[in-house]
């Protein structure tokens, strides 16, 4: 497979694959969040449109999940800093 391309092309394809993999990671995050937020937000039985508040809940669910992830990182950093100070 690799032998059929020259060096420049291989580099180009490596870049392409890297970009696509970043995109794939993003997509898999979106699948994960859709699944999780669906369970949290969609409580009515499915009809022709979302029930009141469900759409807003989905958006909030994503935003708060990302807030949580940032918050956790900060907490862990603070804990680490504190334990280094007390040492």
């Amino acid at each position, binding site marked *: 497979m690799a032998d*059929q391309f020259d060096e420049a*092309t291989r580099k180009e*394809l490596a870049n392409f694959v890297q970009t696509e993999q970043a995109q794939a990671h993003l997509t898999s995050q*979106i699948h994960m969040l859709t699944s999780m937020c669906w369970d949290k937000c969609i409580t009515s039985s*499915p009809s022709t449109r979302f029930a009141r508040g469900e759409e807003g809940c*989905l958006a909030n669910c994503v935003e708060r999940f990302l807030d949580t992830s940032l918050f956790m990182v900060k907490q862990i950093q603070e804990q680490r800093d504190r334990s280094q100070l007390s040492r």
Partner: protein
Amino acid sequence: MSSFFGSSSSGAPAPDMASRKQAFIDTYRQEMALTNAQELMNKCNEKCYAKCVTKPGSSLSGSEQTCLSHCLQRYMEAFNIVSRTYIARVQKERLSDTTA
């Protein structure tokens, strides 16, 4: 490998190589799109079965089918809302990262 033998990098790659490159890119993208569609289908199945078929009978009833078809549309819509929100947030974070 080819660089080891001193292949000249002058000039454009052979047209054959260009078309093979394009074939690689196309195949890769198709595979990704397929994986994505499969994942979405699996999730829809799982979520909508849970919501719509609460007491499995000897066949899918009319109301279960209506529910499934609504659910499918809602799940796709949910995927789009989540996608939009997530991407907007990622872009926002990146922007504040570069300015900070």
